[in-house]
């Protein structure tokens, strides 16, 4: 069968012969036991139900960004993207999981990409040298720099072009290369969500690993085709309708496009929550399991999925989060002015590159340094990079603390403005509407810092939990407390820095150096 041949070509998954789990997956409550949720997830067009509204929103973003009023608070593009999307992403990740990737409208280019593939004389494989997160790290850095240099947050027009660029890139990459390449190896949005969702309270797991063990074709990975009778040709393993537990229709059910095999999933990294696995599993054996936030970070989950690059991405995101928030407060502009005087330049792009480089180097040095000190304190004489591979996960948790608090702040200060912004979209085009621009803030101003501080405390606790678990796992009963001390100080210093930055009054400027006198 095609599916079996494909699984042989894709390489072997070494499965333990004993009964029980393949890997250490959480065994908590399965959210699919909630009434209707399993049926919804297995519904063939479930993802489309959520993708269509986001596609419509993307169209509004593009149209208003290109043709609407070029004032950020009045335009759907800048409001929906830099305020609502970012805020809702962190709220969803904190409460549920990677909901945006689950409903990603960029994946609606999959149909056109399949059609375009037929026009290509050859198909291509994504280069081996790029099958890691290093390219994603470069793209993320470019994105964050561009955000500051071009003031994307203030420009509806550029924001619209960014959205167009995303759709174009998804179409191009997934046309030229296998489906899923864009999500796993290119998309900065998706990889940002992957990194943050490592502290999400849910994870895809196998209900009964022995069912997976006995499964011949692994459709959760390779897909399946299901009809009443076998078709003449097939693109995946054929499993007749009569063999399906909880039948969910006929047709082609794709497998995981980022190559995650359900019973071996130990991390939300690369999981888009697309639920392809849920729909493709003929035995209805996939669960969405509730777990402790930070559980995966304490278990070295990325050892077999490119650990150094993935860890580097998670750690760098934490410090780029520091930079992203820092660039909105007055002390940053003072610092930029001093650097400008030191370098004798007023070139904003150069200044931002220098400042980002400084934060990157200092952040990595702090993480590697704290990790190495922790190993030494615990009695291990390891190389700094080895220590980083052990403790780097702690910083990943801190990253969510910063991004979550920061994005939540902006969301809470302006989420309700979506109403007048959409009214203005139609008013600008001649409709007789009078938007109520006083509709913006969701909570009183005096609540904002306490809410940010609460988020910081919660995810600092997650980071400390991860640190304790790692220490106890690797240093034994006598030394784990000693090993913990440097990480404890590092986590508390990071949190202190976070709170100091978030407590500063904002200064939203389009220029790093301000206008000339």
């Amino acid at each position, binding site marked *: 069968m095609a599916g079996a041949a*494909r699984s042989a*070509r*894709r*390489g072997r998954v070494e499965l333990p012969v004993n009964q029980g789990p393949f890997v250490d997956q959480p065994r908590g409550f399965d959210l699919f036991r909630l009434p209707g949720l399993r049926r919804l997830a297995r519904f063939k067009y479930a993802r489309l139900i959520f993708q269509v509204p986001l596609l419509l929103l993307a169209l509004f973003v593009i149209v208003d960004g*290109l*043709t609407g*009023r*070029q*004032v*950020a*608070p*009045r*335009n759907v593009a800048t*409001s929906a993207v*830099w*305020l609502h999307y970012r805020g809702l992403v962190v709220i969803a990740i904190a409460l549920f999981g990677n909901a945006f990737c689950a409903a990603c409208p960029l994946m609606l280019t999959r149909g056109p990409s399949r059609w375009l*593939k*037929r*026009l290509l*004389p*050859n*198909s*291509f*494989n*994504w*280069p*081996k040298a790029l*099958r890691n997160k290093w390219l994603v790290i470069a793209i993320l850095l470019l994105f964050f720099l561009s955000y500051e240099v071009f*003031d994307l*947050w*203030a*420009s*509806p*027009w550029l924001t*619209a072009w960014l959205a*167009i660029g995303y759709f174009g890139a998804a179409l191009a990459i997934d046309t030229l*290369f*296998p489906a899923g390449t864009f999500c796993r190896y290119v998309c900065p949005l998706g990889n940002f969500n992957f990194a943050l969702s490592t502290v999400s309270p849910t994870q895809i797991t196998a209900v009964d690993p022995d069912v997976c063990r006995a499964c011949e074709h692994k459709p959760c990975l390779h897909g399946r085709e299901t009809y009443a009778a076998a078709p003449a040709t097939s693109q995946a393993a054929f499993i007749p309708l009569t063999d399906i537990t909880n039948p969910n229709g006929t047709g082609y059910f794709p497998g995981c496009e980022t190559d995650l095999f359900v019973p071996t999933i130990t991390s939300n990294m690369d999981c888009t929550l697309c639920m392809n696995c849920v729909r493709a599993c003929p035995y209805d054996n996939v669960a969405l399991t509730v777990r402790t936030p930070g559980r995966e970070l304490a278990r070295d989950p990325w050892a077999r999925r490119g650990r150094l690059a993935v860890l580097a991405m998670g750690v760098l995101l934490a410090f780029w989060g520091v930079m992203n928030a820092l660039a909105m407060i*007055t002390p940053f*502009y003072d610092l930029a002015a001093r650097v400008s005087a030191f370098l004798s330049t007023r070139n904003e792009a150069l200044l931002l590159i220098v400042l980002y480089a400084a934060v990157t180097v200092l952040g990595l040095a702090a993480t590697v340094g704290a990790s190495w000190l922790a190993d030494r304190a615990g009695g291990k004489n390891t190389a700094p990079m080895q220590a980083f591979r052990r403790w780097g996960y702690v910083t990943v948790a801190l990253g969510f603390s910063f991004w979550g608090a920061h994005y939540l702040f*902006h*969301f809470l*200060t*302006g*989420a309700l*403005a979506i109403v007048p912004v959409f009214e203005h979209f139609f008013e*600008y085009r001649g409709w007789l509407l009078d938007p109520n*621009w*006083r509709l*913006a*803030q969701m909570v009183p101003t005096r609540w904002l810092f306490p809410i940010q501080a609460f988020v910081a405390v919660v995810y600092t606790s997650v980071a400390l939990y991860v640190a304790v678990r790692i220490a106890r796992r690797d240093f034994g009963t006598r030394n784990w407390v000693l090993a913990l001390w440097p990480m404890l100080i590092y986590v508390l210093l990071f949190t202190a820095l976070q709170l100091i930055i978030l407590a500063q*009054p*904002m*200064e*939203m*400027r*389009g*220029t790093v150096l*301000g*206008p000339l006198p």
Partner: protein
Amino acid sequence: MLRRLFTSGRFPAVPVRNVTFSLEPSAAHLLGLLLVVTLLSACKPPPDRAATQGDGSVVIVAELVEPPAIGPAPVVVRLTDPEGEGIDGASVRLEGDMTHAGMVPVLADAVGAGDGVYRANDMHFTMAGDWIITITVTADGKRSSSVLLVNVPAR
């Protein structure tokens, strides 16, 4: 070397299919062409229609009474016709926006003080940074507008 780079590796290649091309335009081709034309026409940001309304019959000049700072920021607006004569009895509304989405705008109405001068004493800046103040004037049933850009320094 590039061909080998892109065709090696663990992902299986999609089988090559024989394809014949048709040069007759289809709905998909026309839609694609429309999309390309739309995108090309959006090669630069559009003019700010809300900030440049008017037929030139009302000249709007606005300025801050004091140097910009966080807090109260009274604005004086002078309306004249093209000959320089002051225009009284107009409705003058000021809307102050920052450059980041989600910031609550500051709304103020200017009160006439005679000879085409209007004062918006309720205008204030809630935060340091870049502000865009849109002045919308309604006079004789016609609407005109102008924009005042202000950078408010931190304390």
